[in-house]
C-alpha cells in the first residue's frame, strides 16, 4: 500500500498535473480500497444490500435514480436479492397508472417499474433544497472523477466511488479565513467537485441506518457501502464485462502467439 502510494505520488509528479484541480482548495478523493477494483474485482453482495438500504433510507429522500429498475436488484452481478424480495420491495411504493376506464389510479410498483423519484420535477426539487438541485445518482460514480492526472486515472481508475465516499465523509469546519464568507445554508466540504461549499447538509450520522446482520453502521462504513452500491448502479453489468474481458484477452493472446509463429515460419524462407 505504501509502495502504491509512493508510486502514485511519483506518477502524479511526473504527469505534472498534480492534484491541483479547478479550485486550489479542492482535495483529491481519498483512495480507499473497494472489493470491485482491478481486473478481477467483484462486488460484495452484502455491501451492495447494505448500500441499497442506505440509499433507500437516506439518499432517496432527495436524490432520484432514474435509470434504475427494481428488477436490477435481483440481476446477476448485483446485490443478489431474490425475485420475491424484489417483488415485495417494489410493492412498498406506488405509481400512477390508468384503469380500464382510462381513469388514473395508484397501484403498487412491480419489479419492471423504475425506482420512484423524490420530487415530481426539477423546480420542485430546487425549491425543497434551497435552490440547489440534488443530482440523479444513477451514474454519479461515472460522472465524477476522484482525481486528475493522465497516469493516475490509468492506473487507479477514475475514482468515482472514492469521490462519493470522500464527499460523504469530508465535511469539515471551514478554515478561519473562509468561515466569515460562508454562504448561508451551505456547508464546507473540500472534496465537493463544485466546492468547497455544498448545499447538502452532512447526510449521514453514526448509527443512522440499522443493518439486519448487525454490520457496522458508522458514517465511514455507511459511506463505503453506499459508494459501492452507486458504483454497481452506474454499471450493473460490470462483473459480466470483466469476466468476458478475461476470456477475450486469453483468447487474443493465444491467437496472436499462433499468428506470430506462423508468420515467423513463413518468413524464414525470405531474407528481409
Amino acid at each position, binding site marked *: 500500500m505504501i509502495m502504491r502510494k509512493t508510486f502514485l505520488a511519483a506518477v502524479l509528479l511526473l504527469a505534472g498535473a498534480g492534484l491541483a484541480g479547478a479550485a486550489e482548495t479542492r482535495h483529491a478523493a481519498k483512495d480507499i480500497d473497494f472489493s470491485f477494483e482491478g481486473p478481477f474485482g467483484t462486488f460484495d453482495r452484502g455491501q451492495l444490500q447494505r448500500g441499497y438500504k442506505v440509499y433507500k433510507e437516506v439518499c432517496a429522500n432527495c436524490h432520484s435514480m432514474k*435509470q434504475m429498475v427494481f428488477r436490477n436488484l435481483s440481476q446477476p452481478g448485483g446485490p443478489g436479492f431474490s425475485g420475491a424480495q424484489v417483488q415485495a420491495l417494489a410493492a412498498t411504493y406506488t405509481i400512477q397508472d390508468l384503469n380500464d376506464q382510462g381513469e388514473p389510479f395508484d397501484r403498487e410498483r412491480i419489479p419492471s417499474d423504475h425506482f420512484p423519484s423524490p420530487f415530481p420535477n426539477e423546480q420542485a426539487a430546487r425549491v425543497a433544497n434551497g435552490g440547489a438541485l440534488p443530482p440523479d445518482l444513477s451514474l454519479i460514480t*461515472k460522472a465524477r472523477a476522484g482525481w486528475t492526472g493522465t497516469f493516475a486515472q490509468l492506473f487507479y481508475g477514475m475514482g468515482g466511488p472514492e469521490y462519493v465516499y470522500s464527499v460523504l465523509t469530508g465535511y469539515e469546519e471551514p478554515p478561519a479565513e473562509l468561515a466569515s464568507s460562508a454562504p448561508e445554508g451551505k456547508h464546507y466540504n473540500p472534496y465537493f467537485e463544485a466546492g468547497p461549499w455544498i448545499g447538502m447538509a452532512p447526510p449521514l450520522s453514526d448509527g443512522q441506518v440499522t443493518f439486519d446482520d448487525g454490520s457496522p453502521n458508522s458514517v465511514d462504513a455507511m459511506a463505503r457501502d453506499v459508494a459501492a452500491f452507486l458504483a454497481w448502479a452506474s454499471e450493473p453489468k460490470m462483473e459480466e464485462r470483466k469476466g468476458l474481458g478475461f476470456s477475450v484477452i486469453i483468447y487474443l493472446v493465444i491467437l496472436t502467439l499462433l499468428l506470430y509463429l506462423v508468420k515467423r515460419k513463413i518468413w524464414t524462407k525470405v531474407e*528481409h
Partner: protein
Amino acid sequence: MGGHSSYQPKSAFAKWFHERLPIMDLIQGQALDFPTPKNLNYFWTFGGILTMMLGAQLLTGIVLAMHYTPHVTMAFDSIEHIRRDVNYGNIIQKLHANGASMFFLAVYIHIFRGMYYGSYKAPREILWMIGVIILLVMMATAFMGYVLPWGQMSFWGAKVITNLFSAIPFFGDSIVTWLWGGFAVDNPTLNRFYSLHYLLPFVLAGLVGLHIWALHVPGNNNPTGVSVKSGQDTVPFHPYYTMKDAFAIGVFLIVYCLFVFFAPDYMGHPVNYEMADPLKTPAHIVPEWYFLPFYAILRSIDNKLLGVIAMFASILLLLVLPWLDTSRVRSGTYRPVFKQFFWILVLDCLLLGYIGSRVPDNLFWVDTPSHEGGFALTNKLVGQIATLYYFVHFLIILPILGLLETPKPMPASISEAVLAKNKPALPGHKAAVPAE
C-alpha cells in the same frame, strides 16, 4: 490495375464466371499475388489495422443504431438502455466509443510513418492526398458521433465547434443557423448529426477503396525509399503480409480490448455521463484527446476567424506536403538532418495535444493560475510557440532542408539494403561489410 495475377480458372464454371466477371482474377492479382517490398517494417501494418478498425466501427455502429433513439429527450437514456438492458450492449457501446480512439491512434501512427519514409513523394502524391481527405472525413465522423450520446460534453462540444463557423465574415451567423437547423443546438442538430454519422463511414469506405487503388498503381513505398527494381525485391502479399498484418492486428486488438474491458471510461470525459443541459456550462469544455492538438492551434490565436483558419490550415497544409518537401530522397533513414526535425515535429504535436487539454491562462506545466503582472510562461504562450513551429516546419524548414541537406549514400536496391543489414548479424562478420 491487374497484371500481377496468376489466376487460371480451374473448373468449367469458374471459366464461365471469369469471362463474365473477372473478380477472382482481381482478388488474386491485388490481394494475393500483389508484389510487395520484402523489407516493410511493422509501421507498415497500420494500413491493415485501420481497415480492420473501419470494419469494427461499422459493425458495432450498425448494432448500436438498432437500439439508439436520436431525440434530445431520449438519446441519453437510450445509451443507458444499451448499457443496461441490451445483450452485451455494455461491451458493444464501449467497443464503439473506444474504437474511435484506437482508430485515431492508428491513423496518426500511419500518417507519421508516411512522413518519415517520404511516402507522399512522387509517384504517390494522389495516394497521400486521398489520405488527407480520409483524415478530414474521419474527424467529421468522430465529432458527430461524440454528439449522439447527448451528454454534457457532447452538447457543449457541438456548440463550440459549430459556433466556429460564425467567424466567417458576413455569412457566419446564417451558416451556423443552417448547420443547427434552428437557433440553438437542439433536436434538428442531433438528427442531422445522426444521419451524417451513419452516412460518412460509407463515404470513408469508398475513399479507402480509392486509397488502396492509388496504392496499388505504384505499389508500396518501403523503409529505404528506393523503388522496387526487380522481382528479387518483392514477395507476394499473401501469405507474407497477410500473416504479418494478422499478427499486428492481434497485438492491436489486445491493446484495444484491454481498454474496452478494463478501463472503458479512461478515454472519455466523466461529465458526459450527465445528460446535456443547455443552461449549465461544464467547468472545462475539452474535446476528445485526438482533437487536442488542433484545439490548441485554434485557441492559440485570439482572433476567432484567424484561429479557425489556422486550425483548418494545419490539416489542409498536408495536401501540398508532396510539393513542400523539396528533397528527392524519400526515406528519412538517409536524411540525417530531416530525421531530427521529424522527431521535433512529433514532440511539437504531442506538446500541442498537452496544451489543448489545459486551461490556457494557467502557467505551463505546473498548471496553476498565473498571477497578474509581468511575464508569465502560460499554457497559451507555449501553445502559440508550438503552433508557430508547426507551420514553420512545413512552410520553411522542409522546403529549405531539401535544398541544403546532403543525404547519406543510398543502397542501389531493396535487396542490397537487406543484405547489408543482415550481414553484420551473421557469425564471423563482426565488422559491417558494405554490400556489393
